[in-house]
C-alpha cells in the first residue's frame, strides 16, 4: 500500500468522475423522460470513442473536434434509435423496451466488431500537465472536466430556460397531460433519447482522449453509469453528476489500496448496498 499515491489517485478519480457523471446523466435523462432503461448506453459510449479516433487518426484533425462531432452524431443517433426501435414499444411493459434497446446494443456490437475489429486503439492527445507538490494532473483530464461541466451546464440551461427543454420536463412529469396541452410527446421522447445519447457519446469521446479503448470498452462504463444512476436517484441528472464524482473518487482511492481488478467488485457492492438501504438513491428523487 502506498499512501503517498493516495492523493494523486484520488484527485485523478475525482476528475474522471465528472466524465462518468456526464455519461450517467445521459442514461438517467433517457430513463427520467421515457421510462426506458437504455441497454445500448454503453455501446453508444464506445461509439463516441470511435468518432474521436476517426477525427484524430483518420482525418488528422484536433481530437476535440471529434468530441464536438460525437455530441452531434449522438443526438442524431439517439433520435434514430428511438424512432426505429423504441417508439413502437414505448407503451409496452418495461421488459419489452429493455429487450428493444438490448437488441440495438447487440446490433451495434456486431456491426462494430465486424467493421472495426476488437483490437485496442488509442488517440494521442498531449495537453501538458499541471504539477503542484507531489501531484501531477494531466492537461487532458482537466480539459475533460471543463468540457463535461460545460455540457452538463448546457443541458441544464436547455431544460430550464428554453420552451423545448421545459416541454421535455413536462413530458417527464406527466406525458398524458403534456399531450392535452398540445405538446407532441413522442417528439419530446425522441429528443430526450437523442440528448441522452449525445451525452453518452460525448462522455465516450472524452474518455478516448484519456485512455486506450476498443469496440467493447462501453460495457465497463455502462456498468459504472448504472451504479451512478442508482446512487444519484433514477431520473435525477444532478444526482448523476454527484454520483459520478463519488464513484470516481471511490475508484481513485480503492485503486491505491487494493488491486485495480477489485474495483468493479467494490462498485457492484456499492450498487447492491444502495439498492438495499436507499433504493431511491442518495439524493432520493421525489417520486
Amino acid at each position, binding site marked *: 500500500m502506498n499512501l503517498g499515491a493516495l492523493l494523486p489517485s484520488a484527485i485523478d478519480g475525482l476528475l474522471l468522475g465528472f466524465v462518468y457523471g456526464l455519461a450517467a446523466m445521459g442514461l438517467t435523462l433517457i430513463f427520467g423522460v421515457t421510462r426506458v432503461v437504455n441497454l445500448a448506453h454503453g455501446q453508444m459510449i464506445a461509439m463516441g470513442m470511435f468518432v474521436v479516433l476517426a477525427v484524430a487518426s483518420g482525418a488528422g484533425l484536433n481530437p476535440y473536434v471529434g468530441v464536438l462531432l460525437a455530441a452531434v452524431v449522438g443526438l442524431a443517433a439517439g433520435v434514430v434509435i428511438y424512432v426505429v426501435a423504441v417508439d413502437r414499444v414505448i407503451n409496452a411493459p418495461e421488459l419489452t423496451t429493455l429487450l428493444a434497446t438490448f437488441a440495438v446494443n447487440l446490433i451495434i456490437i456486431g456491426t462494430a466488431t465486424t467493421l472495426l475489429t476488437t483490437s485496442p486503439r488509442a488517440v494521442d492527445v498531449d495537453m501538458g500537465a499541471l504539477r503542484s507538490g507531489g501531484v501531477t494532473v494531466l492537461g487532458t483530464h482537466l480539459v475533460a472536466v471543463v468540457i463535461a461541466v460545460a455540457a452538463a451546464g448546457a443541458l441544464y440551461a436547455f431544460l430550464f430556460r428554453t*420552451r423545448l427543454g*421545459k*416541454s421535455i*420536463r*413536462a413530458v*417527464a*412529469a*406527466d406525458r*398524458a*397531460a*403534456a*399531450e*392535452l*396541452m*398540445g*405538446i*407532441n*410527446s413522442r417528439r419530446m421522447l425522441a429528443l430526450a433519447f437523442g440528448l441522452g445519447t449525445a451525452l453518452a457519446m460525448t462522455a465516450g469521446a472524452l474518455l478516448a482522449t484519456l485512455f486506450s479503448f476498443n469496440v467493447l470498452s462501453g460495457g465497463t462504463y455502462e456498468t459504472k453509469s448504472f451504479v451512478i444512476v442508482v446512487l444519484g436517484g433514477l431520473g435525477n441528472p444532478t444526482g448523476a453528476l454527484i454520483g459520478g464524482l463519488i464513484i470516481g473518487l471511490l475508484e481513485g482511492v480503492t485503486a491505491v489500496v487494493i488491486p485495480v481488478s477489485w474495483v468493479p467488485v467494490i462498485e457492484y457492492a456499492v450498487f447492491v448496498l444502495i439498492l438495499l438501504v436507499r433504493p431511491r438513491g442518495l439524493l432520493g428523487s*421525489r417520486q
Partner: protein
Amino acid sequence: MSSLTVRGLEAGYGGVPVLWGLDVDLLDGALTTLVGSNGSGKTTFLRSVMGLIRPWRGSVVLDGLDVTRLSAHEKADLGLVLVPEGRQLFTTMTVLENLEMGATVRRARPLMRATMDEVFAMFPRLAERRGQQALTLSGGEQQMLAIARGLMAKPKILLLDEPSLGLSPRVTMEMFTAIRALRRAGLTIVLVEQNVQLSLAIADHAYVLAHGRVELSGPAREVRELPAVRAAYLGAAE
C-alpha cells in the same frame, strides 16, 4: 362558432367495453354537463373524445372536421382542451412553467402574456404563488392551476373532468363560480361532475349517463326537475 358532435362513440379498456354508443352534441357558447354515477363512463367519454384512449367505433366531429383519429396534442391544437381528472399538473415544475406549457399550441403562444394576466386576475392566488412548485400548492390551488393551464391554450371548447374532486365545500363553490364566469364570457364548456346538484344548477344542457349509455338529455332546468333524476342523484325523497 365552435361545435362538437359525437356519434355512436364506443370505447373501453383492454377489450372490456365502457361506452356503448354515445351521441352527444354541444351547443356553441353553452355549458353542457355530463352527470352519472361512478363507472357510468363520463371520464372514458372525455378521454376517448380527446384521443387519450382510442375509440373503437363512432365519430368525433369538431367544427365540421372529423377528428376521431387525431391524437390529443393535435386536438389541443384545434382548440379542444381537457382539464383532466385528478389535475395531472406538471408537479415538478413551477406555477409559471405550468402556465407556460399550457400556452404551447400555435394559436395561444403569441397571446401568452395577455392570457396569463387574465388567469391571474381570475385566480389571484396563483399569481402570488407563481414561483412555487405545483407540488406545494393546496388542493384548491392545484385545481385552479389545472383550469388556468387549460385556459392558457385558448380553448374553443373546454372539457372539465371532476373539477370539484377532493375539494372542500367552500373551494368547490369558488370553482363553480369561476366556471360560471367562463360560461358568461362565452366559452363553450363541458362539465363532468359527481356533484350533480351544483352542475345541473349552472349548466344550460345536461346529459345523464348510465352504464355507458345516454339515459336522458335535455335542458338542465328540465332534467333537474325529472323525478327519476331527483330520486337517483339529488337525494329527493320518493
